[in-house]
C-alpha cells in the first residue's frame, strides 16, 4: 500500500515537472504571442496541478495531514489560469501585436474594421 502510494506520488510529481519543462520549451519554440500563450496557459497549468496534487497526497499519506491550503491552491490555479491567458491574448491583440505570418484566418480584424467603418 505504502509502495503504491510512493510510486503514484513520484509519478505525479515527475510528470508535473516534465510537463512544466515542456511548456517552457514551448515558450521558446513557438513563433508568436498567441501560440505561446497556448503553451503557457494549458500545459503550465496542468504541470502545476500535478505537482500540487502530488504534494497533497504526500502530506495525506505519509504525514497524515490533510492540507486544505493545497486544495485551495489547486482550485485557484484552475480558475485563474485560463482568465490570465485570455487577458494576455486580448491585450496583445488590442495593442496590435502581429500574428505569425503563416496564420490563415482572422475574423476579429474583419469585424473590428467593419465596426469602425460603420
Amino acid at each position, binding site marked *: 500500500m505504502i509502495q503504491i502510494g510512493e510510486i503514484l506520488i513520484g509519478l505525479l510529481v515527475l510528470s508535473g515537472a516534465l*510537463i512544466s519543462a*515542456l*511548456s517552457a*520549451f*514551448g515558450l521558446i*519554440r*513557438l*513563433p*508568436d504571442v*498567441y*501560440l505561446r*500563450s*497556448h*503553451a503557457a*496557459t*494549458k*500545459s503550465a*497549468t*496542468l504541470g502545476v*496541478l500535478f505537482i500540487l496534487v502530488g504534494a497533497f497526497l504526500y502530506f495525506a499519506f505519509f504525514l497524515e495531514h490533510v492540507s486544505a491550503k493545497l486544495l485551495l491552491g489547486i482550485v485557484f490555479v*484552475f*480558475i485563474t489560469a*485560463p*482568465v490570465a*491567458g*485570455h487577458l494576455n*491574448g*486580448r491585450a496583445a*491583440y488590442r495593442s496590435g501585436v502581429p*500574428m*505569425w505570418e*503563416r*496564420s*490563415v*484566418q*482572422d*475574423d*476579429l*480584424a474583419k*469585424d473590428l474594421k467593419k465596426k469602425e467603418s460603420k
Partner: protein
Amino acid sequence: MALQILLNLAIAFVWMFLYNDFSAPRFTVGYLLGIICIGLLSRFWPHDFYMRRLWAVVKLLVLFTKELIISSFLVIMQIIRPRLAVRPGIFALETELKSDWEITVLSCLICLTPGTLTLDVARDGQTLYIHAMDIEDVNELSKQIKGTFERAIMEVTRS
C-alpha cells in the same frame, strides 16, 4: 434553487433539535432525510429538484478536467514535433448563451480545450473570437465540442 437548499438545511436543523444532539453525524442524517423529502415532493416546486442541478455541476467539473488533460497533451505533442505543423488563425463563434456568468464559464472552458484560446468577446455578448492553434480541423471539431460545452452549461443554468 436557493430556497430548496434553505429548506433542506431547516429540515436538518429540525432533525437535530428533535434528537437534542448537535453533532455533525446527526446533521448529515438530517440533511439526507431532507434531500429525500424534497425529492419526493419535487412536483410541488416551480423549479426542478436542486440535486439534479448539482449533478450537472459535477458533470461540468469532470468535463473541465478531462478537457484540460487532453488539451495539454495535444499542445505538448505540437511542441515536441520536430517541424512546426500548426496553422493558427482566429475564428468567430456565435453562442446562444445569454447571461454574463454563462459566457464567462464558456470562455474559460474554451481556453482549456485542445488548441483554442478565447481572444475577445464582442460587445453584444453573442460572438466569441477564438484563436485556434490548428484551424483546419478545429473549425469543424470545435463546433462539435462547443455543442457539448454549451449543452453542459445550459443544463446547469436553466433546467
